[in-house]
């Protein structure tokens, strides 16, 4: 057996004979098993439930009888964001952002304007998932296992005889690193199983592989740091203190500091301010329900001129429907502007937080994980945009039916009596303007592209750690 393997096997023997370490192993195994099972069960249920709700919502919409088309505009529809297969590892912002949007005319994605001053807060610790277990808890077990890797030998006096009988410092560190790496490999087995399951459920193998790779790299960075501190520190207590401090700074302080810094640097307007500003701007656009409002005079003149008639009653299209079409378009443009501003602000905040990955591997991994799993802020924004596209499409489809399939006279007289009300209806066939909506994660290559900066940060961390460890090996003394 080579020196490296002998040293690694020796370390394993020590761990297996230490009650504290065994307890750590058992606790971590239980945490990983439980979080994996609970998250898989929850995400499976959520996926099934949201798909069922989506189908039911579509069926309910299509099952509506002949009606006035504008009633269907307000009947509305729901868009559900079903989590991607890799959400069983990292559900990401799912719990924070909500997962469904009610779509109706003249209103847009109310989730966008929730009381969230900072997009940077998205993705914080909200529940115990495999992602949290690996990002936050696994380093703690590695610290318990590894903080004394070298220091224990020095304190017990066994380092001197080992080096004196020809074990090279590089081999010494290599053997200990191998032992810790084997623990890391064992710890990633549940993660690999989850990734395989995600792949069987339609996830691309590349995304699953990259996700497992990112977590492994993160844990290896921790392993390197632990070995480095154990090599350089003079006492076990000091090593433990340094590593615990780094854990607190990296996983608790920096993420919150980054979020606060981002919120201050790119402040976002709150719900009340946004609602007030929007209400003011919407008034200027005019009410699409009131075709006689002065804001629609220009449209009236334009249509009368285009069709060469003198009265709206003589137009070959329903003027009220045309107002609804034009008004919805103007209103949507305005609402989109607000949505884009909000999303831009959240992206700016997120981009600022992302830079903290250079000083905290926890932040780098969190971002890489959410990007690869398709559960990041960008994925949420894409859902909002797709849902809005669906809303605009079916609302304008209904407004088109309003303009072309219902006469102005029937429309204007619909409140006269029941017969007039019956007359002011269009066929339920028109409800088919509603497209099927199935939200799926973005293509694997897009997700990899989004995760690349964070994977690069982790790679730089790992390379730096390796270089410093090489230098530390040269300084290893009994």
């Amino acid at each position, binding site marked *: 057996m080579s020196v490296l393997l002998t040293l690694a096997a020796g370390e394993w*023997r020590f761990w297996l*004979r230490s009650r504290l370490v065994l307890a750590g192993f058992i606790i971590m195994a239980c945490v990983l098993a439980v979080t994996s099972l609970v998250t898989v069960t929850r995400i499976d249920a959520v996926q099934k439930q949201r798909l069922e709700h989506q189908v039911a919502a579509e069926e309910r919409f299509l099952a509506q009888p002949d009606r006035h088309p504008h009633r269907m505009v307000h009947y509305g529809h729901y868009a559900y964001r079903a989590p991607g297969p890799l959400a069983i590892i990292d559900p990401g912002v799912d719990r924070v952002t909500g997962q469904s949007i009610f779509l109706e005319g003249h209103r847009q994605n109310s989730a966008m304007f929730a009381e969230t001053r900072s997009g940077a807060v998205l993705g914080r610790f909200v529940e115990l998932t495999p992602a949290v277990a690996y990002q936050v808890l696994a380093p703690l077990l590695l610290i318990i296992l590894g903080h004394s890797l070298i220091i224990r030998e020095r304190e017990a*006096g*066994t380092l001197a005889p080992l080096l*004196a009988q020809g074990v090279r410092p590089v081999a010494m560190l290599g053997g200990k690193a191998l032992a810790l790496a084997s623990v890391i490999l064992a710890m990633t087995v549940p993660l690999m199983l989850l990734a395989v399951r995600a792949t069987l459920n339609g996830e691309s193998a590349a995304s699953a592989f990259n996700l497992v790779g990112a977590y492994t790299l993160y844990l290896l960075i921790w392993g390197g740091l632990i070995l480095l501190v154990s090599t350089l520190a003079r006492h076990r207590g000091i090593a433990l203190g340094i590593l615990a401090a780094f854990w607190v700074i990296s996983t608790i302080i920096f993420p919150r500091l980054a979020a606060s810094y981002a919120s201050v640097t790119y402040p976002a307007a709150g719900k009340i301010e946004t609602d007030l500003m929007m209400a003011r701007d919407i008034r200027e656009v005019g009410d699409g329900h009131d075709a006689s409002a002065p804001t629609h005079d220009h449209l009236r003149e334009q249509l009368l001129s285009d069709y060469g008639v003198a009265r709206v009653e003589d137009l070959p299209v329903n003027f009220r429907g045309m107002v609804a079409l034009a008004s919805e378009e103007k209103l949507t443009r305005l609402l989109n502007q607000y949505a884009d501003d909000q999303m831009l602000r959240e992206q700016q905040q997120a981009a600022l937080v992302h830079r903290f990955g250079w000083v905290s591997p926890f932040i780098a991994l969190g971002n890489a994980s959410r990007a690869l799993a398709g559960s990041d802020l960008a994925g949420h924004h894409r859902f909002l945009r797709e849902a809005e596209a669906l809303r605009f499409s079916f609302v304008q489809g209904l407004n088109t039916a309003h303009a072309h399939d219902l006469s102005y006279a029937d429309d204007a007289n619909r409140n006269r009596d029941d017969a007039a009300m019956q007359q002011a209806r269009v066929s339920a066939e028109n409800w088919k303007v509603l497209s099927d909506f199935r939200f799926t994660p973005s293509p694997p290559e897009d997700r990899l592209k989004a995760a690349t900066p964070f994977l690069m940060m982790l790679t730089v961390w790992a390379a730096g750690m390796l270089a410093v460890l090489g230098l530390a090996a040269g300084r290893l003394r009994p």
Partner: protein
Amino acid sequence: MKTVLEARDLSVERSGKRVLDGVSFSVTEGEVFALLGGNGAGKSTTLLTFLGFLPPVSGLVQVNGKAPAEDIAAARRAIAYLPEAATLYGHLTARENLRYFLSLARMRPQAEPIEAALDQVSLQPDARGRQLSSYSKGMRQKVAIALALLREAPILLLDEPTSGLDPVAIDEFHGLIRLLAGAGRSVLMVTHDVYGACQVAGRIGLLRHGQMVGSFTAPAGGRIETEAVHAAFAGRVPA
């Protein structure tokens, strides 16, 4: 006789402080040389310098005619080092400790020579399968000596080897050292035990504040006189 260890005008510093100052002595093949001195005299530093852990600031240190830094692997292969307090692994048994250390020395540990070495150091057979955390200091020392025997290194560096041992264990230990020297091993032992040094050493060097202040040589077929060494060690008479 071939010189296996040599320090010539050796000076060493630790943390900027001079710990050895112009020390000279040599150890020949099959010889037991004791370096005697009080706390802080520079005894352990001398051993660490031969092992190549500390570089000399001036002077010369050689193992088998070569500076350790020239070929650190060869120097360490030639030496079996027993630090103070027989540093072995408490969570391993005697056999496991020996197998582990021998594997790391790139030797193939076999059961038979291990048992023979443990027999040689008189470690009770029923203790050999127990973890060392339950051993007395003397028993640990025996395992450490067994390791040195198995290593088959021609040079032994012993750091305070009898510290904390009871008189019976000390006698057994001295017997083992004589046995090893008789078999051609060279021993450099650092100690503050005047009696023990006189019992086993053919020559004694007296170290004080990093300087060699005296030396004693045993007469042919006899031992160094304890009283003379003790008086010099205590500073009552010039060495």
